[in-house]
């Protein structure tokens, strides 16, 4: 821990301010001098109720939104105002909606071939290189979904779980600094969710990725990752790592959620 704290964090939100509907009656100041830093190699789970700022946090990071003030750094470089597609070169993201992480009309093979060129030029050479097929096959075998035999099938024909597994494979295929998992199991059935989570753990571990996972599933938040952050009204109300995180029980989290709910004036 001590060593990590000293070194430059991989991801850092510094003094972020963000207000929505500024100047109207529904003005909402979500982030007020918000700070968060994630060291290299961490797998952070972020939980929180709706409107707590989880999604905004990801949008600020990926470029869907710009903060009113403050800076965001990734790998020592400021990305606060970088265009979305530029910062995407260093970030992999799996979305909640399984149709967003791949291109439905294209085949599995075409999707993989496109992903393989991430950050490089897309010129007039052949889109699918036959030489690479064996490599793609062996990558798909890792998913254990039998996709390696269906390379020419359009991705639209796959189930949600298969698509999420493929999306996960696709965004970790090329070297990235940060993996973002945006409620990526929320739209799946329980067994597909488990499968995708296991794959996530494996990819993160094998490729030594730094990951940020937003989830509503408290069990996953506890079972996976080595740091847990609970967000509420734009603040991290709970931030625990390693042993402290392992000691947490679902009960502790639901209790904490209830406290927050009471603070908000809701009956429990």
């Amino acid at each position, binding site marked *: 821990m001590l060593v990590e704290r000293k070194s430059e964090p991989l991801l850092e939100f510094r003094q972020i301010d963000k207000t929505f509907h500024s100047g109207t009656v529904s003005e909402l100041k979500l982030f007020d001098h918000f700070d968060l830093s994630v060291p290299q190699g961490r797998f952070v789970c972020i939980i929180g109720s709706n409107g707590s700022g989880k999604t905004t946090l990801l949008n600020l990071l990926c470029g869907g939104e710009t903060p009113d003030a403050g800076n965001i750094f990734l790998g020592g470089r400021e990305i606060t105002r970088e265009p*979305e597609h530029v910062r*995407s070169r260093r970030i*992999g993201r799996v979305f909640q909606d399984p149709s967003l992480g791949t*291109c439905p009309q294209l085949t599995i093979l075409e999707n993989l071939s*496109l992903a393989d060129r991430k950050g490089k030029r897309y010129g007039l*050479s052949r889109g699918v290189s036959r030489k690479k097929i064996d490599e793609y096959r062996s990558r798909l075998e890792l998913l254990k979904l039998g996709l390696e035999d269906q390379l020419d099938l359009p991705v639209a024909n796959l189930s949600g779980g298969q698509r999420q597994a493929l999306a996960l494979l696709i*965004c970790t295929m090329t070297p990235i600094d940060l993996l973002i998992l945006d409620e990526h199991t929320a739209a799946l059935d329980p067994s597909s969710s488990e499968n995708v989570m296991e794959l996530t753990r494996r990819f993160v571990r094998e490729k030594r990725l730094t990951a940020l996972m937003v989830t509503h599933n408290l069990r996953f938040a506890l079972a996976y990752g080595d740091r847990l952050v609970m967000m509420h009204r734009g603040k991290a109300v709970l931030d625990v790592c390693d042993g402290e995180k392992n000691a947490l029980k679902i009960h502790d989290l639901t209790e904490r959620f209830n406290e927050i709910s009471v603070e908000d004036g809701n009956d429990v």
Partner: protein
Amino acid sequence: MALDVFLGLLTGVLQEGFVYGIMALGIYVTYQVLNFPDLSVEGTFPLGSCVAGVMIASGLNPWLACMAAFACGAAAGGVTGLLHVKLHITDLLSGILVMTALWSVNLAVTSGSAVTPFYNQPTIYTSGPAALISDSHNSLRALVVAFISCLFVKLLLDEYLKTKSGLLLRAAGNNPRYVVSLGKDPGNMKILGLMLGNGLAALSGCILCQREESADIYSGTGMIVLGLAAVIVGVNIFSGIRFLRSTTAVILGAVLYRGVLVAALQMGLPTNYMKLLMAVLLTVVLVAYKTVPTGRRKKHVSRTEV
């Protein structure tokens, strides 16, 4: 004699169908691949005619005129793309703006005349390889030239769509977020696709006017309707056939649509009602295949599953 008339009509339908097929391929790129309802085609089609007309009338090589027409169409399509992507004007309005502006541009190209004749100048139907077929087989020769031009464009387009850039173009129309996550700007792909689509429309206009040996700035009216009908009919009717590429289906759609129009004229429909019939036919096609614009995104995503 009746057979002669029929064969003559058939040759005409096929020849025009193949030429319009080139434009339909352009609309296939914008509407089907990119999911962009591009109206600028109504202006770029006659732009191709006018550029070719003026160049050929002044004695320039007709093949050079084809390339120039493509380039001018691509430039105009690029403007539509820039208006939409950089200035955030809606897709339909961007097309209308360019279409309207092109009316003046086309008149400027022809120095103000609505019709630019270039009779007896060498065209792609009479010079170069086409000269191998004698003048006595005039209409057959036109058909061969139209067919080869269309086939050439189709094969090139097929090859392009298989390249890395082509795959990215298809991804940009299907799931722009995916393109973003690959570190590319989908807006740039849209601009590229619009350039390609409008370049093809202008090329089609250029090849059509060379058959008539005169360029007409009114020739763009109804091109969207014709092209969309070809794409929708082609993709829905013919794509069910295995191993038939969408691009081939689109060309067959153009030929079929042209055939129906000519048949209606032969059955005594006054020429003045032609555009009305074109609109009615497209309406029938849209209703039959339920691909009205609001539903087009959904329809296309699930097309492979149907």
